[in-house]
């Protein structure tokens, strides 16, 4: 067991940190520390491309697809340095963390050649079309239909998705559709890649609790995609949708955690500034938050150190619950530290600074990507082997 990094890895850390510092103090100074994924969207897209040009976008990918063949250690280091630099949240993350790895795992060589370089270069942004108005936690009950147009061989899609994050700024969407009439549950689903900018797709932003509109309703009305944009085989969409390995989450949470570090540091600074840092109860909660953050880092390192990636450790299944709950608590702590000062904005818009925004936005953490309840089912059933939830017949 060894926690320290090798000299070579530390050199890599310095290289990444220097490059990021240059960017954040130079050409991309204007987007350092910006919050919210839709803020300054055009500049954010340019930033994705800048990362891509310098091969810092998907460093763990094979170099032939635009990556660097980086080791897990290097990915950890880059994630940490990225967040430390104050570089903004990645608007490309659904391509990088979801679409890309899915295509790497299930796609054909042609699909890899066609899609991966665009993701790695930051030129093509992706969004995720899973949820529907009546298929949220119960994702397997999706109804959006897909059929093959016999004349052209294209897939034709009708239906509606909801809560599609960033659809308004993305180029492609991956969707789970029902392709076998009368099929139920996870059977008969098909996983398709679709260009968004087409007459068959309409996007309507939905305003959120924090006033932003990151997510959208996405309507499909005779929307089309070419035959070769099917991933895996028709009817195998559920396996594709569920196929992302647990350890991928470990690497991405490391990046997230450094963002969390930033938020916790802001709370500590606020507590010192307004005197609440001397309140023993607040001190206890801040100390708890600090400990929780450290334990997430070491938990992620533990999962990444498990060399048997074919059989991810049960511990990996506990992450989503861990970080989501931690951050929701952090949002509450932020408001308790701020007191009434957290209730008002400086300007006329519904535009709160970082900490009150954290309080509002963190309510989503325990919902998206599987709610806390669903995550508990997953931990109990898959990691602890308890009996499965009984399912209705509807």
């Amino acid at each position: 067991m060894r926690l320290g990094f090798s000299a070579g890895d530390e050199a890599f850390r310095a290289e990444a940190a220097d490059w990021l510092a240059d960017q954040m103090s130079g050409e991309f100074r204007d987007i350092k520390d910006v919050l919210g994924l839709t803020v300054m969207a055009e500049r954010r897209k340019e930033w994705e491309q800048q990362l891509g040009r310098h091969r810092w976008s998907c460093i763990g990918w094979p170099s032939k697809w635009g990556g660097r063949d980086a080791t897990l250690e290097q990915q950890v280091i880059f994630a940490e340095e990225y967040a430390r630099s104050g570089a903004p949240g990645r608007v490309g993350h659904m391509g990088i963390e979801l679409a890309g790895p899915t295509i790497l795992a299930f796609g054909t060589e042609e699909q890899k050649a066609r899609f991966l370089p665009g993701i790695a270069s930051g030129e093509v942004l992706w969004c995720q079309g899973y949820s529907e108005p009546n298929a949220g936690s119960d994702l397997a009950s999706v109804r959006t239909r897909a059929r093959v147009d016999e004349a052209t061989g294209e897939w034709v899609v009708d239906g509606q998705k909801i809560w599609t994050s960033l659809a308004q700024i993305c180029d492609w969407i991956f969707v789970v559709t029902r392709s076998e009439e009368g099929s139920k549950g996870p059977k008969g689903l098909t996983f398709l890649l679709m260009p968004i900018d087409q007459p068959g797709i309409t996007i309507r932003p939905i305003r959120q609790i924090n006033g932003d509109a990151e997510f959208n309703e996405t309507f499909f009305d005779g929307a089309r995609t070419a035959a070769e944009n099917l991933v895996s085989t028709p009817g195998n969409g559920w396996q594709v949708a569920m196929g992302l390995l647990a350890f991928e989450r470990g690497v991405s949470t490391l990046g997230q955690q450094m963002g969390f570090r930033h938020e916790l540091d802001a709370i500590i600074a606020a507590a010192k500034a307004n005197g609440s840092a001397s309140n023993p109860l607040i001190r206890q909660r801040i100390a708890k938050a600090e400990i929780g953050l450290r334990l997430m880092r070491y938990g992620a390192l533990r999962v990444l150190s498990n060399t048997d990636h074919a059989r991810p450790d049960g511990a990996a299944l506990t992450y989503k619950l861990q970080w989501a709950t931690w951050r929701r608590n952090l949002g509450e702590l932020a408001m308790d530290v701020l007191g009434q000062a957290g209730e008002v904005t400086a300007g006329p818009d519904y535009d709160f600074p970082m900490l009150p925004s954290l309080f509002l936005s963190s309510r989503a953490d325990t919902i998206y990507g599987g709610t806390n309840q669903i995550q508990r089912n997953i931990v109990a059933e898959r990691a602890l082997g308890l009996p499965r939830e009984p399912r209705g017949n509807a």
Partner: protein
Amino acid sequence: MQFAFTEEQAMIAETARAFFAGNATSERTRRAMEGDGIDRDLWASFCTELGLAGIAVPEAHGGSGLGLVEFATIAEAAGAQVAALPLLGLAMPARAIAAGGSEAQKREWLPKLASGEVIAAPGGSHDQRVGDGKLTGTVDFVPHGGIADMFVLASPEGAWIVRADAPGLAIERPVTMDQTRPLARVTLTDTPGDPLPDWQAGLEAARAGGWICVAAEALGGAQATLDRTVGYAQERVQFGRPIGSFQAYKHRLADMMVEIEQARSAVYWAACAVDEDSAEAPLALHSAKSFAADTYCRCAGDMIQLHGGIGFTWEHDAHLFFKRARAIRSMLGDSDWHREQVANIIGLGEAA
């Protein structure tokens, strides 16, 4: 970076697990509880057959010279069975002597501690008076103090080796809630003590060892409460279903697992940070002791609740875990105290 056991560490962990699971049975622990709180046969085979008592002792003095990571795996395995063993004597006095003792003290005591021939107990107090190399005062809550052959006693001014048969030393043995680690009161009246020359280093080593020891015991114990409750959840049927199929029940087990996995990260982070002499070690130690102790308390409490009436009986083992968990939370600094240290380390300034 490789935050996973080496092959050798995994082997020690597995050996320890099998040893304690096979030998530190509920019956034997209960027999020890009715006596003086130690399973002497278990201690003898732990020291001789297993040869693991020397784990905290340098090789030059008859030990195996391994680190706290290895020590933690053993304490974890012992904790999983709530074994009635004076492990803290190895974690604290042995490490204190190794780090802060004179050559003569090391030569005299370490081989005997490594072989199990001598049992040590740690103690600390603020009201020790020292004069002429003699100690006067009371040291409370000395773990396994009733059966120890020697003590390492610390105060804010120093640390001393004191023999149990030294003149002027009296031991009281109150009944302790956790009978697997009884707490004794040691009273000294002009009792000779042999001071550790580098007592600060000794104290620091003893603290790190003690915190890791109880945090690792807590981890092992918490995991055992989860494993046993999962087993019960599969076999106990109510309303025509195994109780583990009820969501309110299984979600609680899932929450236990989430906590335990964090406690595991905490314990090994701390052990590793001390072994690597990392600047993070103090933060890691306070995190580990507070987090693991709280996790154990919560899990052991849940174990009782999730077993229903049987969980409240003396016959069932749940109370062994519950009481050990509570004792760990109070000893060597409670969870609030450790978090207050974290608050200081991260620069929150003075408390009100």
